[in-house]
């Protein structure tokens, strides 16, 4: 069984890039366009093995989304990786405070994604 990854990003090109990179590493991918949608997708599907989320999104940003995930018992143990840039130290800290497990520094490639996922999922 391939691992499943839920990607949450408001940019379609970013979602597609993630999907392309993750699929190439054998992950199966589901997508959400923002935090609100991400929580909806979680409710509708079997919990993914890993969640990758952007921070800057309309409607519900990444911090709020992470808090939302962590406040639901069933999702507390899903590792969450945030997409950041290397200049986002403060955001990284905030994301961790909200419950993020790790981070992926943009720009990413397939190997980098796989590496980050390996670091957070059994």
């Amino acid at each position: 069984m391939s691992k499943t990854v839920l990607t949450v990003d408001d940019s379609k090109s970013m979602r597609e890039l993630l999907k392309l990179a993750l699929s190439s590493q054998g992950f199966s991918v589901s997508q959400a366009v923002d935090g609100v949608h991400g929580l909806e997708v979680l409710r509708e599907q079997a919990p993914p093995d890993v969640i990758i989320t952007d921070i800057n999104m309309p409607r519900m940003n990444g911090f709020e989304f992470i808090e939302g995930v962590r406040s639901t018992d069933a999702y507390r143990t899903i590792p969450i990786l945030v997409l950041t840039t290397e200049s986002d130290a403060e955001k990284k800290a905030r994301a961790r405070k909200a419950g993020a497990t790790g981070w992926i520094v943009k720009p990413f490639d397939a190997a980098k994604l796989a590496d980050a996922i390996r670091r957070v999922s059994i």
Partner: protein
Amino acid sequence: MSQDVDPLLEIKQTFFQECDELLGDLERGLMAIEGGDHDAETINLVFRAVHSIKGGAGAFGLDALVRFAHVFEGTLEELRSGTLQPNANLVKAMLVAADLLADLVREARGGASVDPSRSIAVTERLRHAAFEPALPTAAAETGDDVTAAAPSHPPVQDDPFGLGFQPVVISFDLESEPEPEPAAQATWIVDFRPAASFYARASEPLILLRELSAIGTATVELDETGIPLLDALELEDGYLGWTVQVVTDQDRAAIQDVFSFVEDDCAPTIRSADAVAAPAKPGPPAVARMVEQIVQTFPAAPPPVPDTAPGSGTVTPFPVQAVAPSPIAEDPQAAKQAAAPQSIRVELDRIDRLVDIVGELVINQAMLAQSISESGMGRASAVVKGLEELEHLTRDMQESVMAIRAQPVRSVFQRMPRLVREVAAMVSKEARLITEGEGTEVDKTVIERLSDPITHMIRNAIDHGLEAPADRVAAGKVAEGTVRLSAAHRSGRIVIEVGDDGRGINRERVRAIAIAKGLISPEAQLNDEEIDNLIFLPGFSTAAQVSDISGRGVGMDIVRSSILALGGRISIASRPGHGSTFTLSLPLTLAVLDGMVVTIAGQTLVIPLTAVVETLQPKSSNIRWMGPDAPLVVMRDSYIPLLDVGHRLGYRAEPLQPTSGVVLLVEVGNGNRMALLVDAIQGQRQVVIKSLEANYGAVEGIAAATILGDGRIALILDVEAVSAMPQSDAMGQAPLRLAVG
């Protein structure tokens, strides 16, 4: 499988499409900020736009774009965090930065290349503007000092992302310990003790053990002494610690890397086995810090067992730490703005095909309805009822399909502020743009063809309409001219106006030019409106010398013909000294319309229902005469000119007696009303518009054609054009009649 299309290229295209939207958001946000509206929500919108462009650009290796977006983002970040307050020059600099960003996107897309010195200049400008007080001052002379004193803007980096996926440097000083020889087998002792926060972030000790084992030969020792008695055990706390001895040829960094995500949550210590033997004296300050860290992590009495197993037993509400609410979350308006529509992209061809199919469905449904009604089936019969249901569904479907194609005119409008800035700068005038009704929706095909005419009219307004600042001041106006661009729905059409508060049309000159160019005879008696509209005649150009801006061989006549081709109309109204306003009126869709089917002199025509206000069977008491050929119809105490459509179109030589026909009260442009006389009303029907121009040729007074339920072709009347048409004896062309069939 990916032979034919490179998926990356496709995603890149998607990215560029997103850029268009983001640049639009950016422009809109900056305009709002310029208008004094710099709340957190707006600044966030602007920040997010630049941030997203940077993120995507990084993914595609568009370095120039990344570099400049990074600088711009830095400024916006300071605005967002409140360390910087917007001032007038900063906002102007950001608008220029937005323009540059747009150009860099265009360059990345394969457009004109951007001179790198521009990025440097704009970067400088942003920095300078950032340190001006909220009110602009004459601070030019401070020059370099200001820059030098500047608090940190992120520098333009040559390789902002070169770091890749490096672990964060661990917080204590490593140099103080002896490093084993590289590449030699060394033994490391790694201690870590996950705190509650470790588990709260869904981290997993097992993964750390697995990763350490991957580095070398690992011997794992569990320290479970921290587990308290059952009654003192906190379910969410962390009580276990591990000591792992790793024999490896890799260096310390490799081990640190394992803890890169969790170093704050499990206080890892990494020692070389040699150093272990050394006395555990405080020694270097780094070690003291480390000890402190551990002490902080385990306050008071140590600890029980962690509950890491998912889904195990008792359910206590998880203690999620309070996080400072983000500005977005706090803002009540956020939800509203947030509800930014989600979208999917569909090829236009697919939608067009759907529109066509639905069009055919409408015709078929109409035909079916007609045959059933002719078959004499009872009104209450199940077939007739089912047909009514079908009609509703067809209509819903049609509206839904049309709604898919409808888009707000924003996409066109948002390109205009930049145009205004650039044109104004080019002709040394001051101009600001006010837009209204950007949310007004209209069919996509219409939108696409609106861009050029609007661009041209705006150029025209600035170049010809607005006076030079000095002249404006002399005329008692403010130096900065105003160009107003608005959109609104009116009687089933979209009306777009481009107005300026400039000098207005110089009618003497327009008339003189028209005579000089042989467009009108010197004797022609023209009223003001007619003179104004001379500028739409082919070959007319008012500019004494062709200027760079609007004189590029595209005259207003081209604008007019492109509008006419869309089934639209254009007119100009002008007040000398006060400015001019171009008014465009266009159909909302080019595909279907609700029509009233009427008989005129034996022909069947369709009148757009959106234009019809009411109908009336006139009695002689309703009719007054202004002259032998000028009947008026009296409707609720107002007198409305009555126009015999059949006579006007040349279908009959003699006008119909008003009392023997039916009067349709219609609304024409500017809210004026007109009464149309037809022979009889057949009914109301939804019709699919078939272009007459494409299939036959343009006919004055006729907007398009359609196919009726019985297969006949009917012409669709252009109400406004018919009202404005001269009497039929003035018509140059023979009336168009259609043979039945």
